[in-house]
């Protein structure tokens, strides 16, 4: 049913267009070239590059706090991609049709790819992937708390695509214009794939919502469970957000948590109507004055609890990751030993050649 049995073509609410615009802006900035060079005052030059909407590149001088902020943010994003494979991976072997199985498997594989590009982007800041993975496994770096909720039914594959990938896109599209070049470029690539994920999720939900009564009920139940956790993906309200002001000044972040959350709600309302599903918020209504929907805020106390480790699946997700890492240790050791043996053989062969 890739065809025309649902109407909205760009279900990402025009966000894909914004990704393309960011890509064009990135190309134009690169063509303009940066003025001048770092010279004697690298801090002033850094400020100039940011002010001119140019990109900071790995070899440039940058404030240590800028570097640390980026490492924290990119690592958290990479970890989210990797941990985020688990809730969806949970349904691959039970997908209800072979086509859906193939799409889901490819999607989870994409997420692994996103994790890898992001670790590579973080590595340009002078930290290794192994170090970052160790920080994750030691519980010293976080991943998105949304992945600490369980996927209980097949409909969750639809809802995660629609709402979770959808919220991720709303969050990430502005990052395509982030001041740090490698991150901005990774985000452009990732956002394009996320928009496919979002569309696939929407298709799953559309099919369920127009299917048997049991399928419909499964879809509605799923949206009921994921709506508020998805709203919480944008982080605490602006009044409590600690990192925002500095990140905005550095053009790492471009919109506040609440602005992005509002944009997401406004995007979802119409889509829910097309799906024929109800967003579980009796207070949801259009506000003419604001030109936006009024809605009930997610339970931020719950968000904090989940971030601190008390979500339904925190322990399970971390243990799953640790187990894979632990059980793979002998394989990685073997690959390293084999590579060392091969390198040694090559060296011996070339020495023999020299002697002969």
């Amino acid at each position, binding site marked *: 049913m890739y065809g025309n049995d649902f109407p909205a073509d760009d279900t990402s609410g025009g966000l894909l267009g914004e990704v393309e615009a960011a890509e064009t802006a990135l190309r134009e900035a690169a063509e303009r070239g940066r003025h001048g060079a770092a010279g004697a005052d690298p801090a002033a030059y850094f400020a100039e590059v940011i002010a001119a909407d140019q990109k900071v590149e790995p070899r440039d001088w940058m404030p240590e706090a800028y570097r640390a902020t980026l490492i924290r943010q990119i690592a958290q994003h990479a970890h989210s991609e990797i941990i985020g*494979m688990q809730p969806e*991976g949970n349904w691959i072997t039970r997908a209800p049709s072979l086509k859906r*199985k*193939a799409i889901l498997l490819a999607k989870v*594989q994409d997420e692994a790819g996103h994790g890898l590009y992001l670790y590579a982007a973080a590595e340009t800041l002078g930290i290794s992937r192994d170090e970052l993975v160790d920080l994750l496994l030691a519980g010293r770096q976080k991943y998105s708390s949304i992945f600490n909720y369980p996927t209980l039914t097949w409909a969750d594959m639809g809802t995660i695509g629609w709402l979770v990938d959808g919220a991720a896109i709303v969050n990430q599209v502005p990052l395509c214009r982030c001041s740090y070049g490698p991150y901005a470029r990774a985000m452009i690539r990732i956002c394009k794939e996320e928009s496919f994920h979002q569309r696939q999720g929407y298709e799953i939900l559309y099919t369920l919502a127009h299917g048997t009564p049991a399928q419909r009920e499964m879809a509605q139940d799923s949206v009921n469970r994921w709506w508020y956790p998805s709203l919480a993906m944008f982080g605490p309200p602006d009044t409590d957000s600690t990192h925002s002001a500095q990140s905005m000044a550095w053009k790492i972040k471009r919109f506040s948590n609440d602005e992005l959350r509002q944009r997401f709600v406004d995007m979802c309302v119409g889509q829910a109507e097309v799906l024929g599903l109800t967003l579980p918020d009796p207070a949801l209504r259009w506000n003419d004055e604001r030109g936006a929907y009024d809605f009930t805020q997610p339970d931020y106390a719950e968000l904090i609890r989940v971030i601190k480790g008390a979500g339904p699946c925190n322990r399970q997700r971390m243990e799953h990751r640790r187990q*894979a890492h632990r059980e793979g240790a002998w*394989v990685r050791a073997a690959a390293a030993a084999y590579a060392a043996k091969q390198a040694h053989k090559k060296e011996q062969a070339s020495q023999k050649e020299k002697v002969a």
Partner: protein
Amino acid sequence: MTAHAEMTGPGAVQTAAAPMAVPNRFDFVLGLADDALVAAQRLAQWCTRGPEMEEDIALSNIALDQLGAARLLLTYAGEVEGAGRDEDALAYLRDDREFRNCLLAELPNGDFALTMAKLLFLAAYQVPLYTALADCGDERLAAIGAKARKESAYHLDHASVWVRRLGDGTDESHRRMQAAVDEVWPYTHELFTPDPTAPVDPATLRADFDSVVAGVLAEATLTAPETSWMPAGGRNGVHTEHLSYLLAELQVLHRAHPGASW
């Protein structure tokens, strides 16, 4: 559920050497399809559990290739049968006694070495099989073979690289890899059970398989075990105990909603 009137009855323990009933084209295509489907399901079970992140991606890729081949083959099998069964009807609504995959594909994943041994043997069989199919008289099978052989060549390459690394890596990896080869090897014989009426007689693929596998095992400092045990029966629907569990997981949701579309 349909009855299994075509089954050979209790006590019909199959061995690779025993003569088989002449299978029709439907059974032959179904055998290939089920090998691919069951292999895809097993590989998909690795997703999020790989020893490194790159390997998660590689195993998912191979699973996707196998699933893609399975879908083409099941669709074709359904057309050959002419009873209106599509890929999903064949994948989700048959019981284990109606599956025609080789036992090798359905064996549990075990550790990474066991999975690589399974992949090596399956790919070393599928490469010459699909290559031969690409030149066979059946146009549909020829097209599927031409596509799938390239994918299988990658699977073979991937498995060979890992078998060499593990075989010639550390003491532990060598021990695990040899144990995996020993465990899986007996199941390779079934793959080559003669069938002169098939579009490609599996017996003709043996020489190619033997030479490829011998080369990889030698480079990996491993030995092919001597064994007289040749378990078989998959092609006739007599499986190991593992298949029914694999299918239970694969089919549970589809069967819980009869007639629904997804």
